[in-house]
Structures are given as C-alpha cells and as structure tokens.
C-alpha cells in the first residue's frame, strides 16, 4: 500500500502535540459520532507494482487495432514525438489555473499562444482558453446567442448525434428550443432553412464538414441566418480548417469545435478540448477563461487572466456560464501540435486525409459499396451496399481493422486520415470483397 503521505509516525506525534490533541481522531470532533463510518467497503491497498500490473491487465482487455477507419467525432492522427515529450513536463501537468500571474507566465503565455492559433485557424477575433469538448462548445455558443426574445436554435439532423444530445440537454430548462431540420442528400437544406428562420431564431448551427463528412455551403447558410438577424455558429473539424474556408470567411459569429484531432489521442472519448472563438462584438458574452496581454509596473510585457467579470466567480448567478475548470492541458497540447506542424504540415495532413479518404471511397465503389450522398466530402463518407454492415465490420475486425461506423443495417460511415497507407486500404477492400 502506498498513500503518498510525507510524514513519519514520529512527526505525526510531534504535530499532534503541537496542535494540542492526543490522536488524529480528536481532530474530527466536530463530526457527529453517529454519522462516522466504521469502515469503507473498498479492497485493501496495493503496492505500486501491483497497481501497475492490475491496470496493465485492464488495458490489455481492450483491442488496439492496426488500422482505424472510424471517425464520427474521434480521430486517429499522427502525434509528433516532440508534442508528447514536451507536454509531459511536470510543471505543465501539476500546475493550477494561473491565478497568480507573477509565477504563472509560462501557463498564461501558452494559453495566449493557443488563443492566437485558434484565432488564426478560424479567422475569428477572439478565442477563449478552451471548454470541455466540442459538444459543450456548441452548447455554450447556443447560450451565448440566446436573447430574451430569440430562443430558438436551428440545426439539421446531420450534425454529430452527441452534439445534438448535449444541445438538447442544455436547452431543456432554459426555455430554449432546438429545432432540427431534415438534411437533403446528407447536407443542409437551404430552402427548408430559409423557411424556418424567423424573429425567434437565436442562431443557426451547422457542422463543417458535417457528421456524414459532407461539405456544407456554409457561406450561404450564414447569409440566411444573418438575413433573419440570427447568429451563425459553425462547428468545425480543426484539421479541415487548414484547407477549408475559415468560419470568418463564411461569416460565422461564433466558431466552435473539438480540438482532439490536433495532437490528442482517441483515449476512448476523452479528455478532449472544445475550442470557441468569436467576433470582437461577441467577446464579452464568451464564456470561460481568457488570457490577455498587459504590462507589469515596470512596463514589461505580462499575461493575465482577463475580462474576469464575465465569469461565475464574480458574477455568480448572473454569469452567462458556470464554467470554471477548462481543458487547459489539452489546449497546450493543441498549441504544441499546431506549432510542430506549422502551416505547411497542417496543410499536408489535411490534404493527405482528403486523398486517402477519396481513394478508399473510389475503391469501395468498385466492389459495390456506393457512396450514399452526392456532395463533396473531406475525410469521411457514407456507403450503402447490399451486404449487411455487420458482416463487413466483423470481417474487418478479424483482420485487425476497425471499419467505419454502422449507421443503419446497410450504411457505414467511414473515415480515413493520414495514418492510413495504400497497402492497408487495399487490404481492407480485399477483406470486404470476400464478404458474402
């Protein structure tokens, strides 16, 4: 057993004496006796070696695939060694929120750099220091856009299911309506959108690329939102932003998304990081921590948490959001990833995803797995076929390949990133060809 305590029995005795009590139990005399617990029903502690063995055994019960052709909100990308190595420095890992600016310039500057990179990626003016994940970023954006008389968010049934679920949870008790329109051929139906927006619309939320991997006519959607005096919120895959029109170029008021593809492992769904960026106009409604540049009393450049009067610890029940902890460490990893890749590397990753995904789509088409939707796509696409999805995925699984995500009995959502290579994709296609 190990408990990470740092005092000996002798020291414990000295300390009790210094306090003026006889035993550790005496320190708890404020707790009513009849409430005290006899014994916790937990196993006995383990040595660190046993813990390692125990946890390793658990980890081995999970299957690690050689090839991953599944995305749907969690993406397998190459993570550069320097990102893993430098981010594991314990000063970063074991630091608290940088409330004491004089001894936290490193954390503050890292967040400032992260904010700057998110602004550059999205084209927006202001980024916060991160929120929990992409779905929560969308929910926070919804709250940001909600006004007294505008309380309806309009979206389509082609956004990530988890995002839609979280939006609905957050709307439920705030008298906010989430109106979900049907997509047409997998993409946003502009006609339906035009008909749906109105005086009560707070914002239109779409994802680019959408859940099915398709590219939306984001600029046009933004125009429709703005004509109705509603805000335009865009959920983005950050890898795609290296080559796709930025949310700012598309007229977005708020850009959100999940930063996981930027250097964070899939890790069974978390921790990930939600990014949020907006126009200058919306800055003071943005939730979460924001780092700003200023000077110290000698005129040296300095970074501090700023615009804190927006936040719950000052505004309490009047705050726009309750968020306190964010995902600062994940944001640090994201900024390291973006620095390590640089503009050229980012573009190469995005283009590689596009090329490999289109290669697989074409090869699948040849063996009868046709694309369901017509539109252009980034690195995900949906196929339909006569062969049941379950059969295909089982065969791939046997070959050590995690196939796409089953959407219905005959539909599969595939994802291909730069981690793939031609031989692997050919092998996958070969396995599927043999499925009867």
């Amino acid at each position: 057993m190990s408990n990470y305590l740092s005092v000996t029995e002798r020291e414990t005795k000295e300390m009790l004496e210094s306090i003026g009590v006889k035993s550790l139990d005496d320190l708890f005399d404020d707790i009513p006796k009849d409430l005290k617990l006899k014994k916790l029903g937990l196993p006995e502690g383990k040595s660190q070696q046993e813990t390692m063995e125990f946890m390793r055994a658990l980890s081995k019960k999970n299957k690690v695939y050689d090839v991953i052709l599944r995305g749907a909100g969690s993406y397998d990308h190459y993570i550069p060694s320097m990102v893993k190595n430098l981010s594991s420095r314990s000063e970063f890992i074991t630091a608290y929120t940088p409330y004491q600016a004089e001894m936290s310039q490193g954390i503050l500057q890292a967040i400032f750099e992260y904010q700057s990179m998110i602004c550059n990626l999205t084209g927006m003016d202001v980024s916060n220091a991160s929120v929990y994940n992409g779905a929560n970023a969308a929910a926070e954006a919804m709250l940001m856009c909600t006004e007294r008389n505008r309380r309806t968010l309009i979206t389509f049934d082609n956004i990530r299911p988890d995002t839609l679920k979280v939006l609905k949870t957050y709307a439920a008790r705030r008298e906010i309506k989430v109106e979900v329109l049907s997509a047409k051929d997998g993409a946003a139906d502009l006609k339906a959108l035009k008909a749906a927006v109105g005086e009560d619309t707070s914002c239109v939320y779409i994802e680019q690329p959408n859940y099915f991997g398709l590219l939306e006519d984001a600029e046009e959607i933004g125009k429709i939102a703005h004509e109705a005096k509603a805000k335009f919120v865009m959920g983005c895959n950050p890898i795609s932003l290296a080559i796709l029109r930025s949310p700012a170029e598309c007229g977005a008021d708020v850009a959100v998304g999940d930063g996981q593809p930027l250097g964070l492992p899939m890790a069974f769904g978390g921790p990930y990081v939600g990014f949020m960026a907006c126009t200058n106009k919306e800055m003071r409604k943005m939730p979460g921590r924001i780092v700003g540049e200023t000077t110290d009393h000698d005129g040296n450049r300095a970074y501090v948490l700023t615009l804190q009067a927006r936040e719950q610890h000052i505004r309490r029940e009047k705050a726009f959001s309750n968020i306190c902890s964010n995902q600062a460490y994940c944001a640090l990893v994201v900024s390291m990833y973006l620095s390590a890749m640089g503009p050229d590397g980012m573009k190469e990753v995005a283009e590689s995803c596009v090329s490999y995904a289109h290669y697989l789509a074409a090869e699948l088409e040849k063996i009868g797995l046709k694309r369901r939707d017509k539109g252009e796509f980034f690195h995900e696409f949906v196929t339909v076929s006569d062969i049941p999805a379950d059969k295909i995925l089982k065969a791939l699984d046997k070959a050590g390949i995690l196939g796409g995500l089953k959407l219905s009995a005959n539909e599969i959502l595939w994802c291909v990133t730069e981690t793939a290579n031609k031989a692997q994709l050919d092998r996958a296609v070969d396995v599927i060809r043999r499925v009867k």
Partner: protein
Amino acid sequence: MNLIFEISEPGKRCATIRKPDVGKVSIGKKYLRSEKLDLPEVSEVDFARHYTALSRRAFGVDNGFYPLGSCTMKYNPKINEEVAGLEGFTQIHPLQPESTVQGALEVMETLSGYLAEITGMDAVTLQPNAGAHGEYTGLQLIAAYHAARKDYKRTKVIVPDSAHGTNPASAVMAGFEIINVPSDEEKGVDLKALKEVVGEDTAALMLTNPTTLGLFEKNIKAISKIIHDAGGLLYYDGANLNAVMGIVRPGDMGFDVVHLNLHKTFSTPHGGGGPGSGPVGCKKELAAFLPGPLVAKNARGVYKFTESRKSIGKVASFYGNFGVYVRALAYIVTLGAEGIKSCAQHAVLNANYLKANIEDLYPTEKGRHCMHEFVVSMQELKDKTGVSAMDIAKTMIDRGYHPPTMYFPLIIHEALMFEPTETENKRTLDEVIKALREIYEEAFKDPEYMKAAPHHAQIGRPDEVKAARTPIVRYVKP
C-alpha cells in the same frame, strides 16, 4: 520571453509526415480557404527550447508548496500518468464494439462503484467534465426528480453566502432561481434564516461540507431535516471531500446528490486549469435520471453500456474524460480503504498544524479544529499597516511558495485560505510557518516594500485594469 510567433521563420519545419502513396485529390475551389494559415514555423530545437522555457515559467506541485485552499493541490503520482498513457487506454476509439473495450468499461464500472461507496450513494455517472459541470448535472437530476413527481412548483435552489460562485451559476443554468442564505456566528448555515426561506418552492439546498471556511457543518443533521421536511433535496458539493473521505459519507449525512472532483480529491493533475472530471452520485430515487450511457456488468461478467429512458440526456460527448478515470482508479486501487482514510486524516493534521503555528498572527475561527483547510482574515493587519492579503500573497511568491487562495470566501474580509493537503511534508510546513511569521513582522517594518511585491518573480504586478479595458487577447503581427 518571446512568443512562439516571434521566433517563427518562414520555411522552418518541425514535425514531418509521410507523403500519401495514392493519387492527390483536391476539393472544389469554392470550399477552399483563401485566408493565409498563419501558424508558427519553427525547427525542432526551437520548439523544444520554447516549451521548455515556458515550463520553467510555470509552477506546479512538483515545484513546491502549493496551499491553494479549496483546490486540493495534492501530489499527482507518476504511476497514474504512466497507466493513463498505456496504449490499451489511449489507442482505443470511443465507438469501438463493446466486446473490444471490456477493459475500458471495467475501469468505468469499477471506479463508479468505488466512488459510490466513498460517497454513500447508490449510483454514479462519470460523464461531467469538471466540478461545475457536475453541479449542473446534479441540479438537472434534481429538476427531473421533482418533475417526475409532477411537483412543478419547486423552482428555487438555496445557496449559502459562503458558496463557490459556480453553485449559483450552475443552478441558474439548470433553470432555477437562487435564494442566498447567510452564515451564522459559527460560520455554518444560519438555521433560523434557512427555516424562513424553505418552503413548497424549494428544489434543493447546495452545501459544501466541510464548508468553504474549512469547518465541518455541525448542524448537518438539522439542516437535512429542514430541507427534507419541506420536500427539497440536499446537494453535496464535493470540493472539500478530501477532509472527510473514509471518515463520514455524504450519503450518511443526508445528501441526495453529490459531485466529486477527481482532479482535487483523487489526485489527477490540474494541468494548468484542466482537464478535470466531476462525477455525480445520487440516491436510488434519482438514478433513473442520470446522463447515459452508464456501464453495468451482467450475470456473465460482461460489461455493457446501459441507458435509462428517463435520463436527462447527455452532458458531454462520448463518456467524459476517460483518461482522468484511469488515473483516479489507479489512485484508489493503490490506496485502498485504509489509505483513503489516512489521506483525510493527514490532510486535516497538516492544516491544523499549520493553523496552530500561525493563528496568533493570522487570525482564524477560534476554539475549534479546522478540517483540511482554514481561512484567515488579514483585516486587522491591513488596518494597522496597510498591508493587504494580496500583499502577503505576493510576498510569498518572492519566497518561492505558491500563495494560498485569496479573497475567498467572500464573507471573510482580506481572506487567505490555506490548504496544505496530506502530501505536504513537515519540513516544508515548518519552513512555511517560519516564513509566514517573518512576513507578518515585515508588514510592520517595511509595508511599502511588501505592497510592491513580488520583487524577484518572473514579472512584477501586472496592470489588470489595462488588460480588461483594452483587451489584447491574441498575437497580431506588428
């Protein structure tokens, strides 16, 4: 030091990736970005030096004394980091077939069970990503519970004036109105005032116990009775569980819903502000409303995701911050029943030892033991010397210590809140006691010097007014 943008040189490369071995495909022009992608361009050595320099300007638990009250900055065991980095945990997709992630589901089920036992609750969700997120989730459960009983008039949540700001903010996000109740002379909930505000519209009372003043709420049984008699529920903010885990359980105190902070109580690192994890536990009457999916083990020993039809819905994507669960499980498994309890005992011992040796100069609640933390008021010193709680905090920085939490809770003037945690050693505590006593003397000898502290830090005091008046929140090329 320079921003990474300022050391950027066009053409420099750091990470490189494999060239695709399939034909290049391009996306239609109308979708393509025309704006330049302005990211840093650095070499690998530039990269390594930049981030190493940043890390040297960060201060973590591994750097030194970190007595941030209400934050529980305990040591973050290295073994937890290593197990969380095992390939079997990092390289698994959240939407893999259940049969291929039995280990991950076992982590979640086992941890949920342990947390239920520690808190005395019947069911636990791990999904919320942080404490405030847990509060929000817990309050949604409470709303769902009342609604299911068609008890629609319960629109108000009672919050003590000593509460953390997230409490009222979370309750408003969950659609409730806030009623603040004052504290009594012993800094607990004022029972008389509480009785006056409870009623048919009370949905819940949110309470931290030990309170934000680091004192055990002695009247907890009476409070529980008042709330429950009125038909309301009792919500436990687990921010301060570290003081009492293994000794008394929220469930046994009468609480119906709790949230925990794995990043406080269960040793997972704070990472400069997150990721955290805020599991929520509840009594069986509320279990059906928990956000799904939950994990259950069937009769054949197979782990399965389950979802209740009455669930409030999801509060985060996938299953929350899974990597944090792995760390917390490794911690609890290492400690076991006895280890958990001894953490609480020693957290309280360390706090009382520090308190006992400075309270003649740093006044705090008299005549009772504190729990894992205590709050001192420097009002008297400020009146005598002009030196404020903030000046003391900044002087501590000059001595290489992280300051305690300042100006919280709001009901104490010139507050400093010390939480040394159980992992602090006696030698450091003795040094800190000596330093704090010297600092107190200094306030009389040279108050002006202290008001300008820190003198030997990375920067002097920053101009926060300037930062907020004309916000510069991103780098712009000159």
